[in-house]
């Protein structure tokens, strides 16, 4: 299987641990990943204003790159890229007049976009094409006795039209954890917003949310949290520093990309996991469980 891949900017920086562990896993699962040439930042958020077309240009331009690489679908890892690319795609597919305007604006592109690219997330690829039973067969280092709470955040599942799982009770991450032989832990805050970009100028709000979300996961017995968004990861991981300052009784908990856990189970060497980029050190718990 071959698939075009849109990384987005954060996967090349702060979330290199996300990218490297995902690419390792996909290679191991027999998927040939081809990074898009000349991709540009998607803009991170889908523009909600009905009359604002200019902000759909960035995501749509990336879909032209998909066509140019002779593909008709593209995979993302970042939840925000997924949401923005997919919503912009659905927006222009439903509104040919807007698509026409956007194409005219991009008159220097060699081809027009025709709404014929499919945007998908790695989670969908795993569930629908690779299939979790096949993933389970490839596991060489089962994540035995590791209690994992899966955190979805907002943009993988909302709004409904583009969500990749049940909008109120998604289970795809838990199912993956089960395939890796981990113990999934359910908790009520798994789809609660982490306060997102408020982290730039109002980190105290993020500290409150991080406290609520993570203590809820801990109360259910979680030892680590798995997720799929570099902004969620920053807020739930790095902002534990601010959280601990505000809530002295708060206990740190490691945050990992689900792909890091998957890569471990698939036998990935430790240096590929880039655990140095995880702020709360996951090594002690991973060592305790005999996983690294």
């Amino acid at each position: 299987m071959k698939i075009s891949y849109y990384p987005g900017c954060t996967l090349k920086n702060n979330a290199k641990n996300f990218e490297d562990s995902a690419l390792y896993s996909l290679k191991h699962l027999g998927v040939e990943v081809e990074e898009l040439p000349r991709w540009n930042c998607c803009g991170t958020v889908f523009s909600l204003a009905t009359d604002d077309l200019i902000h759909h240009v960035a995501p749509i331009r990336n879909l032209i790159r998909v066509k140019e690489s002779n593909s008709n679908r593209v995979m993302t890892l970042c939840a925000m890229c997924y949401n923005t690319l997919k919503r912009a795609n659905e927006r222009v597919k439903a509104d040919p007049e807007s698509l026409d305007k956007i194409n005219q604006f991009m008159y220097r592109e060699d081809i027009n976009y025709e709404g014929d690219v499919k945007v998908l997330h790695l989670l969908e690829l795993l569930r629908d094409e690779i299939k979790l039973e096949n993933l389970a067969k490839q596991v060489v280092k089962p994540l035995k006795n590791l209690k994992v709470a899966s955190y979805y955040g907002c943009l993988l599942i909302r709004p409904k039209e583009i969500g990749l799982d049940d909008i109120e009770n998604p289970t795809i991450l838990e199912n993956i954890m089960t395939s890796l032989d981990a113990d999934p832990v359910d908790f009520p805050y798994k789809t609660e917003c982490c306060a997102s970009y408020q982290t730039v100028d109002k980190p105290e709000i993020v500290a409150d949310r991080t406290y609520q979300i993570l203590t809820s996961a801990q109360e259910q017995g979680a030892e680590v949290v798995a997720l799929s968004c570099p902004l969620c990861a920053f807020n739930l991981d790095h902002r534990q520093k601010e959280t601990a300052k505000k809530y002295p009784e708060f206990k740190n908990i490691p945050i990992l990309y689900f792909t890091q856990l998957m890569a471990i189970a698939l036998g990935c060497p430790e240096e590929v996991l880039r655990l140095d980029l995880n702020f709360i050190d996951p090594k002690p718990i991973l060592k305790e469980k005999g996983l690294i």
Partner: protein
Amino acid sequence: MRINISRKKIRDSFVGKVEEISGQNLLACYQCGKCSAGCPAISEMDILPNQIIRYAQLGLKDELLQSKSIWICASCFTCNARCPKGINIAEVIEAIRQILLRKREDHLKIEKLSDAEKSNVPPIAIISSLRKFTS
């Protein structure tokens, strides 16, 4: 808080502008409160999501444009997902922000952030906050 309602405010072009930019029919809201019940940000808000819709119906422009809430909402779409009338509350809030931003009244002053604040956060955070909080 004392609120004055008048025919003039209800007929103000502000109401039409919010409906146009958001693409939502404000009068569809019957004030059930479900949007506010599920909103993770209400503890920081001065006007709750259901009140935002009511204020917008009534053309309470000054109250909305000065509210803290419009900058606290992080477009998490929980309210949209749960509104029994299918109203996209997050879009209405975006429209109110847009009315200010389109007058170049930026909410986030990037030049006021220290280098440490900027270099600590990942690109995804900087870009999304600039997209939401500046024109």
